[in-house]
């Protein structure tokens, strides 16, 4: 049996995994990253528009700070987020941008003086400050009060992944490419690593580690129409679920991005609308102001996606061979802007649609985009129920996005979580010893080998690719933007049938080495469990919150549902997850639940909301003369939750820090 030992095992080589690995390696821990693909090809690369961090360098970002970013994020989450974690995040995001600036990310920079921008369909001249010249620039994004999204043209994720990937190489982080974790090794209370399959040779190995981190990204490929890369199949989520011990939080919270190109579903960035692009219907009418007079195209993604579908349902969609869509119009931004700041969008339109976005409108329709749910962790990134198992990024639910993530908060989360969890995982390794249970490791490998052998030797008649396609179509049709009890019941029943059928899969191509059909087969079984976790969680949650919208329960219901779904999969033979719930504590919220400022104004209050609101008001009133930091600390202290080296304020043009003492 091949056993590989390390201190830290990171499953996933995207931004979160690589940044976490760099942190652990710099702290002196041996670190191995497992990746399905060469790490620079990970889906982090597809993040186009940018990363939110309240630097406040541009004039339209003036007055921005952690407090504003915090409120935008909590409102965006429809109060589903953990407010302490949001605080940790917003305080670290500026540090992450500045670190990446030093590591070589060519952030787009502010140019002093006048420039013309498009705001609300109109050309407006704004003047950037002299003192901001050359600092990192910000653009507008949905659901934000200030221009906060730092960017590198529209290749932000690409540039970040280059820099972090190169840093990892420079630090000598080992990356084992083209391997896949099939199962976590654990004894019901402690995680010891993973059973890993080499996708070239088909051989299994046990990777035994003091600490294991899941950084496997999202699960978009559970859906037929998704912006996600083909590798985002949620296998990291699934292997956590299959431990029976670790819980997945809020899996029913699935984001649909308003602007997937139609019909391929490839993303064009929110920056298109942030920079002034408009959504138009079959008549060329700009319809978003009719629904959202305040934020228009720049309400949060869940709201814009629903309004687009609502408008199409009213008969205002554009009919095409593949179905209906609406238009994204960025022609008003002009050729120079598009070719400079939206060049990936230009390429995508050119190659996949044969459309020149300088002259023509882009056909778009919402597509699955982001998995808010993930391995439930503490603010340290560690699972509260399976010691030694950590998670970071989209695979995690620590939980900063609640039921809807803001654009620009995901790439930001990857590096911020990598920095924070990387420190805590290092503390864990400093503190913990590892007694290797050799029998347990051997059994885990044998179990996975037996499953693969059974698939290859069996005479099953079901085709994995057919089952997978049925699941994907079902998820898009029944567990999508608009959900009902009826559709979700059908989805759960059909998924259970698919799960039963998946136990009778055959793999006609018998090679045990590079065998794409075998891969589809074992992944499909895992994906079906995850799909059931989403569909069943959505069925039970009889309210609407963020991206989870129920036509039959259209109101957010804080009285009953201000709580996080926790799903576990207790027995291998189960056909449904076991659901539990973890209440969010209103009495400790810095921003008690209220109206988001866009979308429906209709919700049921939690019984404790009024009292907490009064309390927050009283504290603010009492500290009216104090600075914002003091006021904030009185409401929700968080700095003690951060690793020591990531504490401290963030300097801005308008919030200068005293000069360093001369050395």
């Amino acid at each position, binding site marked *: 049996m091949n056993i590989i030992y390390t201190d830290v095992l990171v499953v996933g080589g995207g931004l979160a995994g690589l940044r976490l690995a760099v942190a652990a390696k710099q702290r002196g821990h041996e670190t191995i990253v497992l990746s399905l693909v060469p790490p620079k*090809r990970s889906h982090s690369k597809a993040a186009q528009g940018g990363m939110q961090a309240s630097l406040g360098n541009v004039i339209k970002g003036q007055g921005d700070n952690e407090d504003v970013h915090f409120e935008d994020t909590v409102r965006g989450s429809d109060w589903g987020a953990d407010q302490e974690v949001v605080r940790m995040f917003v305080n670290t995001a500026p540090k992450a941008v500045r670190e990446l600036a030093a590591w*070589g990310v060519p*952030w787009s920079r502010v140019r002093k003086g006048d420039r013309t921008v498009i705001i609300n369909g109109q050309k407006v001249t704004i003047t950037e400050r002299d003192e901001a010249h050359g600092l990192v620039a910000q653009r507008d994004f949905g659901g934000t009060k200030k221009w906060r999204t730092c960017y590198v043209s529209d290749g932000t994720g690409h540039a970040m992944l280059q820099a972090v990937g190169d840093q990892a190489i420079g630090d000598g982080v080992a990356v084992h490419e083209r391997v896949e974790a099939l199962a976590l090794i654990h004894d019901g209370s402690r995680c010891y690593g993973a059973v890993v399959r080499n996708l070239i040779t088909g051989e299994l190995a046990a990777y035994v580690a003091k600490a294991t981190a899941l950084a496997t990204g999202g699960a978009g490929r559970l859906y037929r129409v998704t912006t996600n890369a083909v590798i985002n199949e949620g296998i990291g989520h699934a292997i956590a679920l299959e431990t029976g011990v670790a819980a997945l939080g809020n899996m029913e919270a699935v984001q649909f991005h308003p602007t997937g190109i139609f019909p391929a579903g490839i993303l064009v960035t929110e920056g298109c609308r942030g920079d002034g692009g408009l959504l138009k219907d079959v008549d060329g009418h700009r319809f978003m102001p009719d629904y959202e007079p305040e934020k228009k195209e720049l309400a949060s993604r869940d709201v814009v996606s629903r309004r687009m579908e609502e408008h199409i349902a009213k008969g205002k969609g554009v009919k095409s061979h593949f179905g209906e869509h609406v238009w994204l119009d960025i022609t008003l931004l002009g050729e120079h802007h598009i070719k400079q700041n939206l060049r990936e969008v230009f390429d995508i339109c050119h190659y996949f649609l*044969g459309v020149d976005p300088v002259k023509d409108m882009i056909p778009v329709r919402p597509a699955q985009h982001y998995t808010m749910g993930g391995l439930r962790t503490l603010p340290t990134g560690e699972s509260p129920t399976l010691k030694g198992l950590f998670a970071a990024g989209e695979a995690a639910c620590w939980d900063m996005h609640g039921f809807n993530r803001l654009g620009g908060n995901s790439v930001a989360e990857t590096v911020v979580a990598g920095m924070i969890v990387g420190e805590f995982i290092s503390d864990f390794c400093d503190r913990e010893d590892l007694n290797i249970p050799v029998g347990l490791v051997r059994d885990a490998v044998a179990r996975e080998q037996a499953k693969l052998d059974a698939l290859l030797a069996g005479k099953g008649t079901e085709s994995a690719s057919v089952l997978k396609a049925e699941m994907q179509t079902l998820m898009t049709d029944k567990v999508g933007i608009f959900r009902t009890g009826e559709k979700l019941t059908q989805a759960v029943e059909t998924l259970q049938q698919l799960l039963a059928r998946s136990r009778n899969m055959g793999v006609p191509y018998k090679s045990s080495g590079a065998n794409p059909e075998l891969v589809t087969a074992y992944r499909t079984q895992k994906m079906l469990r995850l799909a059931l976790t989403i569909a069943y969680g959505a069925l039970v949650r009889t309210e609407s919150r963020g991206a989870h919208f129920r036509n039959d329960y259209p109101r957010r219901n804080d009285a009953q549902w201000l709580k996080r779904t926790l799903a576990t999969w207790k027995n291998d033979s189960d056909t449904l997850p076991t659901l539990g719930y973890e209440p969010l504590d209103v009495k400790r919220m810095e921003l008690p639940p209220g109206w988001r400022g866009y979308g429906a104004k209709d919700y049921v209050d939690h019984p404790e909301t009024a009292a907490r609101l009064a309390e927050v008001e009283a504290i603010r009133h009492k500290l009216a003369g104090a600075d914002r930091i003091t006021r904030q600390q009185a409401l929700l202290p968080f700095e003690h939750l951060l690793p020591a080296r990531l504490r401290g304020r963030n300097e801005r043009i308008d919030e200068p820090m005293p000069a360093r003492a001369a050395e």
Partner: protein
Amino acid sequence: MSAVQGGQKIRLHILRYNPQKKQDAPRVQTYELEEAHGMTLFIALNEIRDKQDPSLSFDFVCRAGICGSCAMMINGRPGLACRTLTKNVGPDVHLAPLPVFELIADLSVNTGKWMRAMSERLETWVHMKQRELDLTRIERPMDPELAEKIYELDRCIECGCCVAGCGTARMREDFVGAVGLNKIARFRLDPRDGRSDEDYYELVGDDDGVFGCMSLLACHDVCPKELPLQTQIAFVRRKMAAQGLK
């Protein structure tokens, strides 16, 4: 959207070989399928795998032309399969794996291994002047145009097309290729990197580096990101020649 065509038959002639399998021999296998509207090679290859031949190996990740996974020889020319429309290369399409790189199986090659080795050799990361950063402070300003120039070179997706199209790479196993030379040009431009031309000369001042380039410049023609490889290689060569004469 334009009128729906489709319905016509196309044929993919794929060079197949799995070196992992004993007794496997390289051969060309032909698959026929119906062309759909807007069909890309990504769609066509997946349809073949789902409906005709589950053993066919190829690599896709983003399927949007940004990750560099799916470079292959398309009718004899390196390109990204995911964004290639079948109507532009058919009805007979010849597909082969990229040369130079280690073959995994069929159309799948190990570009990741090659790129990591190149990165380690050329030390393609910013060599920071000071390692410890005070992250609470405002970032250092950078000229906005310089940031754009760096991004222009940073757009490389390490797909391997330039290496596959390179005459020198066929002859010299250790040649760093246009991808490597472009990276040197990128870090040379970056004021955050503390290295000098003397340091870069150590890395690429020989025949496996910039002096190995024969200026055939297929790299420039086939780069899917249209990087200015011709000017960058010429620029690095001039700087390295000057350094060599010192």
